[in-house]
């Protein structure tokens, strides 16, 4: 049939390559898809333009007082003047360096985790440091200690972003071990222990955090013997930790269930006791599987810390709320809330990227 001549390779039609090709393939692959593109595109452009106009083009960025907000746009000057308060709360200005040191160490622990160039061993060491020595160190630095010549700074002046981070960090570090114990308890052979763990987990998962925090702040003094009081921050921490440990327990239970029975039997066959078998064989595998789940729990914990404002602690959001009512400024509520939303978003988004990274790394399936 053919005369042995090979047709020269033709360039692809111009409609399937280049910008036009990309647009056709990705934006208008079908009739329905094309309509969606047009509608969504209109929606985005029409809502984005006024926002950019207000937030950037017509906004005031530089200045020190309400008088510097002259234009129609956003008044970011307000955020600038209150930035210290939003970060440190009432923490005395002369001692800010102590918090800064902790932020620096925190950054040194966290940032390498995002880079694949850093070896797994170093990440591991940093991680272990982060959950053991670091909390103790932070406590000594932020609360202070006579032994090291750091004046005591009571928890009542802690606030702002620092407080938000403290609540989230302590919550997660304390919730993991309790969560592991609860998860093990729920899978225990002892009926009473199992029942207690189930009741505990379902109780804390079933009630809103608001009610728990309210109970911790207002009702806890009623539960304690006369004269014994708890630090307010500690009360909130206990409430948050117990609440999160119930969620953590369910995440970890998922990991435990995913471990094949053979692993349990192998551990027993080696003559390992319950704790040895769990600690050396089962948990390391189970925890590895559920790391993304743990990070997701951390994200929700981080966002949930905003609820401590119902018990009068000055976390980031409360600090914003307390200052936007300053009568010296015009209505700066929108600016304040956008700022808070942005800060929370940055933290949560990086955490969720991190979790997706881990998920990809640990995934060995047949996904396309």
């Amino acid at each position: 049939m053919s005369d042995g001549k090979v047709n020269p390779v033709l360039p692809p039609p111009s409609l399937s390559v280049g910008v036009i090709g990309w647009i056709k393939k990705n934006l208008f692959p079908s009739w329905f898809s094309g309509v969606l593109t047009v509608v969504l595109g209109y929606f985005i452009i029409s809502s984005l333009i006024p926002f950019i106009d207000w937030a950037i083009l017509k906004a005031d960025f530089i200045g020190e007082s309400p008088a510097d907000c002259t234009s129609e746009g956003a008044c970011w000057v307000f955020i600038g003047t209150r930035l210290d308060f939003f970060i440190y709360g009432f923490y005395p200005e002369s001692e800010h360096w102590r918090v800064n040191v902790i932020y620096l160490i925190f950054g040194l622990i966290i940032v390498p985790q995002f880079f694949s160039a850093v070896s797994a061993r170093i990440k591991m060491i940093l991680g272990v440091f982060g959950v053991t020595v670091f909390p103790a160190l932070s406590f000594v630095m932020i609360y202070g200690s006579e032994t090291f010549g750091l004046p005591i700074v009571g928890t009542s002046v802690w606030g702002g972003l620092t407080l938000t981070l403290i609540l989230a960090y302590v919550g997660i570090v304390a919730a993991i071990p309790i969560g592991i114990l609860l998860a093990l308890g729920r899978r225990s052979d002892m009926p009473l222990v199992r029942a207690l763990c189930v009741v505990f987990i379902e109780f804390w998962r079933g009630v809103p955090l608001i009610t728990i925090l309210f109970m911790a702040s207002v009702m806890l003094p009623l539960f304690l013997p006369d004269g014994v009081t708890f630090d307010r921050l500690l009360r909130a921490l206990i409430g948050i930790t117990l609440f999160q440990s119930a969620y953590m327990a369910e995440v970890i239970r998922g990991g435990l269930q995913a471990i094949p029975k053979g692993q349990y039997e192998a551990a027993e066959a080696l003559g390992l006791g319950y704790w040895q078998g769990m600690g050396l064989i089962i948990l390391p595998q189970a925890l590895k599987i559920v790391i993304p789940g743990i990070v997701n729990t951390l994200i929700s914990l981080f966002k949930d810390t905003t609820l401590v404002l119902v018990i009068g602690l000055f976390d980031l959001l409360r600090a914003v709320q307390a200052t936007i009512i300053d009568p010296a400024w015009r209505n700066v509520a929108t600016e304040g809330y956008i700022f808070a939303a942005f800060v929370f978003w940055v933290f949560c988004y990086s955490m969720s990227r991190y979790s997706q990274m881990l998920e990809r790394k640990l995934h060995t399936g047949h996904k396309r």
Partner: protein
Amino acid sequence: MSNKVKVVVAGITAVAAMVATGVASASTLETVKQRGSVICGVSDGLPGFSMPDERANWTGIDVDTCRAIAAAVFGDPTKIQFRSLNARERFTALQSGEVDVLSRNTTWTLTRDASLGLNFTGVNYYDGQGFMVRASLGVKSPKELDGATVCIQAGTTTELNLADYFRANGMSYDALVFDTSDQTIQGFAANRCDVLTSDISQLAALRSKLDDPSSAVLLEELISKEPLGPVVRQGDDQWFNVVKWTLKAQINAEELGVTSANVDEMKSSENPEVQRLLGTSGDFGQHIGLSADWAYNIVKGVGNYGEMFERNVGPDTPLGLPRGMNNLWNNGGILYAPPIR
């Protein structure tokens, strides 16, 4: 001892210090003196009464009242720790000894005075509940508000006063209860409600948050009495006296013309009343467990009542409130302090 062990030990001691700070059986004044500072419960953000400023310092009348107490006890108004409390936890915090004095724009009522185990020491601001209405409605009196939607902040006597007032006048209303004063004004600004009700001292501040403050008017008629003042625990008369007379000293100082600027000159005044106040004659301070120059320290550190008012809520502040009822008795107001003698 290795450094690591040191850290751990320091940590444990500090945690222990955080946990069990029981109410000492000693008198409050002694506890305060031993601690070296007064712990004062304030509101968590109320313009003119207690609010953090740009440098994260507390400012406001309630805050200055606390500072005056610290000045009276220690001669130094900075020897004070503030605890921000919300409406729900304020009384529990005072009862359980978490704070020494509660200065958190708290209305003096019989129930609170009698059945909560608390004692009101006096009034540092006479307030009343008022209404803010959109100017375009042309409403002149709260009696014309039948059927209106009312924006209101949760957790205070304001809610009850409102219900009482509308029921007493046979009117109906929809109450929209918000959690914070900021949300309340935002709701009003967005035209969600016709009326906003709150203590009159707050209404002006809230109105300044509107894009066009002149679009809303404050009704003159008030529907309640709200005497606000510092509160202490029952059963410690010495501390009760200290807090009560700190306030009285500030009022007396204004009456006698003693200000923070002229208090040093006034020390050599011939007026026996001024001498008794500033401790140059007599030992009135000792009677309440303080030093002779207690009132001098208050005026020097915080100022007299008038200065405190002008600085925080007066006409030159964003709140711009007139003295009104909160003027001296001989100046058209109802502030009247018993004499120091």
